[in-house]
């Protein structure tokens, strides 16, 4: 078999195995896989804006939270079914992205990062404040519903969709233009690329995924509160996953999400008093030792195509 065929066969087998998994896995196994899907979707989404354009979205969890709240409110107050609410969550996140992306994407470098960080805080404060709609600090408790397995499939589809989207973007002229912006925005502008519009499109695409999985996660956990859906640590985890796998690639975020989540569950969950330290050390190691990520290293060494 040619490698390409082998890869495709492997991919099909993997998808089949994942689809069959809920039939054999334990409750925890299913939930852990569901979480992996969630992280894949989050990391791949972050990669779309930050990996490609170089604009560091340091508040990306805002879209996750926006989606979680949109979904939870529609389910509890409007009686929507959760799949519809999840799509609405994606839409809600896109609306937020439009409102803040339009002005903020003009900011450069660290200023954009800090503005995004701030917007996440603003969103959290607003969600706490408008308690008529959001329950404020009480959070929202969703009606009890045993839906872990359907949510598992929905989350899997979301992860696959975002990865596919990343593949389509990265292999397209649109993706090339985004990377041109990353390398030199002034030059990109001079080449006639409408940078503002391109950045905004990428930003919107990167917000949809977190919005959808946010709503799905809300459904799955059954309870959300402002502090638990807007944490900075979630943004950082997405970023570390992308960086570990290789930013700007299709499979890097997937690889990073799987490896980091699995090692977190298997290894450092066993050290309750040390796991933050371990996670911190891993971040430091990734930044210092492999800033281009696993796939970046492989690309460099084996001259792999840019579009893996």
């Amino acid at each position, binding site marked *: 078999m040619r490698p390409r065929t082998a890869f495709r066969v492997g991919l099909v087998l993997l998808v089949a195995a994942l689809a069959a998994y809920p039939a054999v896995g334990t409750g925890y196994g299913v939930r852990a896989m569901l979480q992996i899907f969630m992280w894949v979707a989050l990391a791949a989404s972050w990669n779309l804006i930050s990996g490609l354009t*170089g604009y560091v979205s340091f508040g990306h969890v805002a879209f996750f939270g926006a989606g979680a709240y949109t979904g939870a409110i529609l389910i509890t107050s409007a009686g929507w079914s959760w799949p519809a609410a999840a799509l609405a969550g994606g839409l809600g996140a896109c609306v937020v992205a439009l409102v803040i992306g339009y002005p903020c994407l003009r900011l450069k470098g660290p200023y954009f990062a*800090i503005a995004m960080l701030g917007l996440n805080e603003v969103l959290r404060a607003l969600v706490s404040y408008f308690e008529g709609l959001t329950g404020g600090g009480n959070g929202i408790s969703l009606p009890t519903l045993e839906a872990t397995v359907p949510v598992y499939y929905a989350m899997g589809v979301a992860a696959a969709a975002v990865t596919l989207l990343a593949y389509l973007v990265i292999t397209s002229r649109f993706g090339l233009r985004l990377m041109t912006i990353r390398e030199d925005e002034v030059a990109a502008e001079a080449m006639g690329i409408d940078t503002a519009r391109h950045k905004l499109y990428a930003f919107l695409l990167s917000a949809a995924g977190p919005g959808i999985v946010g709503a799905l996660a809300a459904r799955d956990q059954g309870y959300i509160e402002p502090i638990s859906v807007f944490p900075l640590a979630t943004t950082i985890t997405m970023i*570390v996953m992308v960086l570990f796998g290789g930013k700007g690639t299709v499979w890097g975020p997937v690889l990073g999400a799987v490896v980091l989540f699995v090692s977190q569950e298997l290894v450092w969950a066993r050290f309750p008093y040390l*796991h*933050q330290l371990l996670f911190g050390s891993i971040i430091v190691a990734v930044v210092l030792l492999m800033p281009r990520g696993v796939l970046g290293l492989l690309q460099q060494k084996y001259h792999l195509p840019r579009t893996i």
Partner: protein
Amino acid sequence: MNVVITPAMLGQVVVSGILAGALYAMVALGLALIFGVMRVINIAHGPLLMLGAYTTFFLYQALGLNPYHSVPITMLVLFALGALLQRTLVFRVVDAPELSSLLLTFGISIALVNLAQLAFTSNLRAIEYATGSYTLGPLAFSKSRLIAFAVAAALTGLAFLFLQRTRLGKAIRATSQSREVAMVCGVDVRRIHLITFGVAAALAGAGGALVSVIVAIQPEMGQIWTFKSFLVIVLGGAGNYPGALLGGVLLGLVEQIASLFLTTQLSEAVAYILLVVILLVRPTGLLGGRQT
């Protein structure tokens, strides 16, 4: 609810805001220094403040040292720690894209918090010192905050003198303006970086010493200060040192006044919205002149 806001109340929160502002300015000046000289956004700044608070606490507990007398000692300890961090880790991300420095310092930050939890446990601690306030007419000046204001203002002033007048300070400013030119002029840039990070950590440490008598001391107390410092330096203009002073006082006032007219809940949001608006109007902050 129906609170009638009188001028005296407004005066009181303006006092509180300005008192808080000087402390913000001092802590944020450290962050501004690191950013200005090395283009590194130091998320571990708050945790360094936390370590400063613990240092002061243990000096107080073990030796009975007055928390204000231990400010210099705390600053020395934190200077050493900051220089060590720079020497071992941070120097590798100087000039790297902001993503590397954000992540590296975040990693350091959670590691420090975890280490603090291990070493000091999550026991709640605080120093009971200088409670109460001085009153002037209808206005109350919290003793601990007034002293913090004075010490912070003095230290910030000293830091400016150091930057303006001393050879070393000039070298630091030169490095932040143009590293290449500084190097050509014979400035040992690595040493400057080491000292910058040390001074910044010392300022955070001083902040920790001063807040140790204001709030409870626990391993997670620092994070909020990282956020506040961000706000301050961006409001004032990152890399612009006097801007930190303006940003600090501005943040203190905005927080207090928003809390008074709206609610405490919204004051943080108001501060961030102000930040974004200022950034949009002046993309490098109020006093920021240079484009990065």
